[in-house]
């Protein structure tokens, strides 16, 4: 294609000033994409057109700006949406014939009589909008009431849940402490100072076991009742340190599936050659019931 000849043919002027039929328009648009010179010529013609159009510039009547800003401010509400011309409305909006009628009105040359009826339509439209707004305010109030009701119920549920959780935590804490003066070790399992002894059961307790970790330096003792049944009613298992063949109280502990993963802190033990477990009355005994020894093991 002879680009210079194309440019000087006048087709670009006709294109920019909008007098080409559609088929020729797309021809020009293709040429613009293909030839930078054509694009430059079209751009400069667009600028000419803009300057030319500026010659006809007229300040629009006041009030349109305010109306537009108001429409845009409310465009996300249904009322605002209804202010828009039909084709620009969001699809969810109801159709009101009001705007259409005004459009027809504005198309017709405005005679004074037309003006009046157009005013009337605007009044009706305004009234409709006010009604919608009132309805919306009422609904807001209604739903707000409802939502506060749900909110308070939700809050009381949360409070109950928090109380339950706090109780549970408290329980876990007391079972851990068991009147031990020794500070809780944050992670006795990975602390090398702890010596872990697994105590296996025999007889009725065959297959049952607990693990006891003892830190000879801090005297802290932890127990994990991995495989221990729930004690009979009114009874509780108690741990004893074996010191020179005598049993020294190391505190009671909880058993059962629920605590099988828990580390329970026991009473401090200064010296121990081994550990034993007996079944005692709930709360523990001062002296061990020697006929109730379930299991024992030496510290390796």
């Amino acid at each position, binding site marked *: 294609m002879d680009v210079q000849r194309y440019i*000087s043919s006048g087709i670009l002027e006709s294109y920019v000033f909008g*007098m080409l039929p559609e088929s020729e328009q797309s021809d020009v648009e293709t040429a613009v994409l293909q030839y930078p010179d054509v694009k430059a010529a079209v751009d400069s013609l667009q600028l000419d057109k803009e300057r030319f159009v500026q*010659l*006809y510039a*007229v300040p629009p009547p006041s009030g349109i700006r305010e109306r*537009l800003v108001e429409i*845009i401010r409310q465009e996300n509400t249904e009322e605002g949406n209804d202010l828009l*011309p039909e084709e620009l409305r969001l699809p969810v909006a109801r159709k009101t014939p009001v705007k259409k009628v005004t459009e027809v009105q*504005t198309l017709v040359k*405005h005679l004074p009589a037309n003006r009046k009826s157009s005013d009337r339509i605007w009044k009706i439209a305004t009234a409709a909008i006010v009604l919608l707004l009132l309805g919306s305010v009422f609904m807001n109030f209604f739903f707000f009431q409802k939502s506060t009701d749900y909110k308070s119920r939700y809050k009381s549920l949360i409070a109950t849940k928090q109380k339950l959780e706090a109780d549970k935590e408290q329980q876990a804490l007391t079972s851990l402490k068991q009147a031990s003066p020794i500070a809780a070790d944050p992670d006795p399992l990975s602390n090398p100072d702890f010596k872990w002894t697994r105590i296996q059961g025999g007889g009725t307790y065959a297959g049952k076991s607990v693990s006891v970790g003892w830190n000879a330096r801090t005297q802290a003792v932890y127990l994990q009742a991995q495989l221990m049944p729930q004690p009979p009613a009114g009874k509780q298992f108690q741990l004893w340190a074996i010191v020179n063949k005598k049993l020294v109280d190391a505190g009671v502990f909880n058993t059962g599936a629920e605590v099988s993963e828990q580390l329970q802190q026991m009473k401090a033990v200064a010296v121990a050659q081994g550990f034993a477990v007996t079944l005692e009355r709930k709360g523990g005994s001062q002296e061990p019931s020697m006929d109730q020894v379930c299991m024992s093991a030496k510290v390796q």
Partner: protein
Amino acid sequence: MEYAPTYTEDELVQGLKARDQKVFSYLYDQYSPALYGVIVKVLNDNSSAGDVLQEVFLKIWRHLDKYDPEKGRLFTWMLNIARNTAIDILRSKSHKLEQKIQNIIDDVHAVNGPLAVHPSTDYIGFSRILEKLTKEQRTLIDLAYYKGCTQEEISRVLEIPLGTVKTRMRNAISQLRNIINK
């Protein structure tokens, strides 16, 4: 028009996409006189032009995502919207071509357009510039741009061959360019 631009075109587009109402107000202040001028000239009717201008700005606001900076400046795009909206309305008025033409010829003769009614220092050069175009050149631009006539229609109305329409259009625009850029 003289003004201190506070937004570049790119900032304007970004601001509008971000639904910034301040940017919209700025856009309105900057461009509404030009767009309103186009609408008034197309419709030759001040009473409905305000409503059309409002519709045009709402279209700009709503359809900004369709604007493609690759295809031209923002102002060009806005002008197209204003012109096409106004011309659609003009056509829906079911004006016959002859009526369109009559309006144009009246327009060209009479100096009683909206400009004469609201003279303003900004537009004072206007009539002097148009005087330098021949009457035929003015009619040609007006028919094409402001009345949306195709070249066939223009050829029929002005009784010139179709091929000549483009050449004359080119002459008219280069004459216009010379005058404007002087």
